[in-house]
């Protein structure tokens, strides 16, 4: 069966472009060791066909042109007499068709991708969640034909039965199941009625918990699971279901506790070991996750486990990371940075390493080189707490030594970044303390301006999708005999359309104590109003993240009046490819067009772009 009209227009173009894309994909697969002789043969064949199609289209257009140009009879048939019109016909036919088809195809593909973002999958059951299948079958068994569809007659008869006997628990349960999709609030009311009437039945609580879980009402669902557990402490569906619901709610630590508690008494439950492994992975405990997965495989072999075990082993393996970046701004400052780093897992949740980099900063007339090194550590004491700490120094070469005595000088630097969230993920807290040398321009490096700053970003979830954010910070700038301070405060709101897509708006104001003459722009006040979006996409081979912000900024210089609002924007893009199981190749692009810069700007009206690439290779 062939749907649509084969060959014509958009469908043909879609397959033509896909065929031309195949060699690029094949190169990509080859880089991951997933190319085969048969797939290369298919690519060769299909690309040949695609090129043949392109050649035939070109020849057809040329042939038509020649025919219309040479044959008066054809021009007459076509309704054109002038040679100009004749010459236009093939162009009109071929170019209009190609442009029209390409435009239509772009609209279709963008439309499908957009629609996908707003239409969630209804699929709740997965092939791996066998216990959920069990729950589903249980619900079917209890609700009879209710879930299967064609519900009107059943609904009428259940309602009639409830009218006669409002306290008929079974009918309440059946009708609740029937109304889950069409009338969720009535369905919930009936489920609750059932558990009131049959308060000793744990299954009522479990079914209602699953129903609420599907609407992302995790707190209510977990509470109901706990009620079910009180009534049936040894029941797998209650204990296991609660742990899974905790995982769905993002309460990873509690979920791990739940699975571990269940597995202490039921160590032969392979599914529970697998789910435990997933949660341990989520908590960053890769070694424990590997152990749990191997345990599951010993009980029941799963074809997908070997790849996951390899991934987890690699995630906890030592890694080395070379990186290179290049940046340029609107004042002609360019900066290159070449870095080599490495890290290893000390124990589950603790990873440490070192990095060393050489830097070159230059403007139109001056060039400086300097090195820095750092020891860094990442800690995950709990699933919801992540601490990054680093300490090291920047080594300035002899001509940068202010004493003019030759040799080198070390400027210490340090960073602590703490991210924490409540168990329910409703409240998050982000604190960053940083001491660093400002190195955006040769002048700043010359003056050895050191910034010491603390920034906080509390984040409160008002609902599942809507969050409020605060921004606060204090910074001190020292160097070249000058000292300055900066206060930052602000607030914003974020709307999560999907877990991978967030829109936000925020307002911030920064105030410097006084103007600066040592190389950075320090107005009395800077105000920024910005709308931004954050999009993240991930599949088995790549991660793409886009952070785009646009808005307006204005500033007031010391002793002056507030300036006008001017547009400002920024963008950040990350593309990270997974090469086989043990290597990642990442590209990052960061740009600003700003009046005063998010951290520091040398002048007002600053434009900046940086590109970097890094390769992370995990040792076997």
């Amino acid at each position, binding site marked *: 069966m062939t*749907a649509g009209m084969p060959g*014509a227009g958009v469908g043909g173009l879609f397959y033509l472009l896909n065929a031309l894309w195949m060699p690029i994909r094949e190169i990509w697969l080859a880089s991951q060791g997933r190319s085969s002789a048969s797939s290369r043969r298919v690519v060769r064949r299909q690309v040949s066909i695609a090129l043949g199609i392109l050649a035939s289209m070109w020849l057809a257009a040329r042939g038509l042109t020649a025919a219309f140009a040479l044959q008066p009879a054809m021009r007459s048939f076509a309704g054109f007499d002038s040679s100009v019109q004749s010459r236009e016909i093939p162009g009109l036919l071929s170019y209009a068709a190609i442009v029209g088809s390409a435009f239509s195809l772009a609209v279709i593909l963008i439309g499908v991708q957009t629609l996908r973002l707003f239409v969630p999958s209804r699929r709740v059951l997965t092939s791996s969640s066998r216990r959920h299948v069990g729950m589903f079958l249980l619900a079917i068994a209890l609700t009879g034909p209710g879930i299967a569809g064609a519900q009107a007659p059943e609904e009428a008869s259940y309602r009639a039965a409830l009218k006669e006997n409002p306290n008929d628990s079974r009918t309440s349960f059946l009708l609740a199941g029937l109304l889950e999709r069409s009338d969720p609030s009535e369905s919930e009311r009936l489920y609750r009625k059932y558990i009131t009437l049959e308060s000793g039945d744990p299954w009522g609580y479990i079914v209602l918990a699953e129903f609420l879980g599907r609407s992302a009402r995790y707190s209510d669902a977990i509470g109901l699971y706990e009620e079910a557990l009180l009534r049936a402490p040894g029941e797998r569906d209650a204990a296991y279901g609660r742990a899974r619901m905790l995982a769905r709610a993002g309460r990873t630590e509690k979920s791990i506790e739940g699975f571990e508690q269940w597995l202490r008494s039921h160590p032969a439950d392979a599914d529970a070991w697998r789910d435990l492994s997933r949660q341990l992975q989520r908590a960053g405990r890769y070694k424990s996750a590997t152990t749990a997965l191997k345990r599951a495989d010993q009980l029941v072999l799963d074809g997908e486990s070997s790849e996951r075990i390899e991934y987890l082993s690699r995630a906890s393996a030592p890694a080395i990371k070379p990186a290179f970046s290049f940046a340029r701004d609107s004042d002609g400052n360019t900066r290159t940075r070449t870095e080599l780093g490495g890290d290893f897992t000390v124990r589950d949740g603790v990873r440490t390493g070192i990095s060393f980099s050489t830097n070159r900063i230059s403007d139109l007339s001056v060039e400086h080189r300097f090195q820095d090194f750092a020891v860094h550590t990442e800690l995950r004491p709990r699933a919801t707490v992540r601490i990054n700490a680093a300490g090291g120094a920047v080594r300035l070469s002899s001509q940068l030594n202010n004493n003019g005595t030759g040799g080198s000088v070390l400027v210490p630097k340090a960073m602590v970044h703490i991210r924490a969230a409540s168990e329910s993920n409703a409240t998050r807290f982000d604190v960053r303390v940083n001491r660093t040398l400002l190195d955006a321009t040769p002048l700043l490096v010359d003056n050895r301006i050191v910034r010491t700053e603390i920034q906080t970003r509390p984040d409160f979830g008002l609902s599942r999708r809507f969050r409020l954010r605060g921004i606060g910070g204090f910074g001190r700038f020292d160097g070249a005999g000058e000292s300055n301070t900066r206060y930052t405060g602000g607030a914003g709101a974020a709307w999560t359309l999907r877990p991978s897509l967030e829109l936000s708006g925020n307002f911030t104001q920064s105030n410097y104590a006084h103007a600066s003459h040592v190389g950075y722009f320090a107005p009395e006040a800077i105000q920024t109003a910005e709308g931004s979006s954050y999009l993240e996409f991930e599949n088995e081979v790549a991660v793409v993240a886009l952070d785009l912000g646009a808005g307006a900024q204005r500033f007031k210089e010391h002793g002056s009046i507030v300036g006008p609002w001017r547009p400002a924007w920024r963008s950040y893009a990350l593309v990270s490819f997974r090469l086989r199981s043990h290597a990642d190749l990442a590209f990052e692009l960061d740009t600003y067009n700003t009046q005063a810069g998010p951290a520091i700007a040398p002048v007002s009206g600053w434009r900046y772009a940086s590109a970097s690439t890094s390769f992370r290779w995990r040792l076997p």
Partner: protein
Amino acid sequence: MCRRAAERRLLRSPRKSELTLNIKDELLDDELTTAAFGRVADAPVVALCVIIPAYNEAQSIADTIRSLWAQTLVPAEILVVDDCSTDGTGELAGNLGVTVLRPLKNTGSKAGAQNYALHRVRTPWVMAIDADTVLAPDAVEKLVTAFQDDRVVAACGFVLPRRVRTIWERGRYIEYLFAFTFYKQVQDYFQRPLISSGCFSVYRTDVLQAIGGWPSRTLAEDMDLTWSLYEARHQVRFVPEAVCYPIEPHDFHYMSKQLRRWSHGFVQNLRLHWREMLHVPFLRSAVAVAVWDAAIASFVFLFVLPILAIVLRAPWLLLGYAIDAPAILVPVLAGAIPRGETRLALRSFPMFFILRTLNAIFFMRALWTELVLGRSLRVYEKGH
């Protein structure tokens, strides 16, 4: 070895080297006679059960069964579901060494007949084949290679009309050559063949049974099943080396029945699967462009082009009906030349444009009837 022991061996999981089980002799001793059924004497047996749904297929079913016995890899069992035929289909099949099942009443659809036999299947693989389809001698052997990848749960082969004589058969021949040489191989490269063709496909029995067998809720059960498999994160493959030859409609009467069933089946599946399908990469784009071609391109083809040609007095616009002929000819020849069918393809080529126009009419009608009028076609009419 007794028959039961042989069956037990057949039920073992057929991984790679165990793919074939050379137990022909044990089976033949009991029931089969090589000469009678045209079976290849030394052919190994594969742990595969074939289901052939049949309603009044006496004209063609013998060829189908013989082509199965003549495979280089012979199926372990062939089940013919005689769906209350009145032309002696069941008796004819019974004489050819297959098991014939006969429901108490007509099941009403091809899927219904297939599901009637599915619960009897004990082999790890099950094949669906139409009663008017014959296979190339190595079709089964080629097709089961797809299952060396454990993630694959269904595989289908290359389809070509058995007879290429009338306008409609010739049009279909070009359509298949084009689609299976170009479109379907691109789909397969991206691991999403649009449909595992109902006329010749092999499935993993446990997955098929778990998913509820062949769905009968639409008129295109193969499309419904394929898309359901994708939504359940399974893989489907297309094996172009495995070739089958169904009888295609030879006249307008049967062709219109088939196109009506296909076009309504497509729209019904679209309504049923659109939400889940949005989350299946490549498939969502392939189906979206197919819908566009079925709706917008058909509309342009049938209405906009002729109206513009008349209103603007520009007959050259009518070139739009065949402007893509060179582009279609390339994959057609790429498919025909290796088969030594270049002349047949060139002779048949113009008929494709007639069939394509008819296709556009039926798809437009199906979209209008199913989506606008809300009248869903439910009666399964046989039309090959």
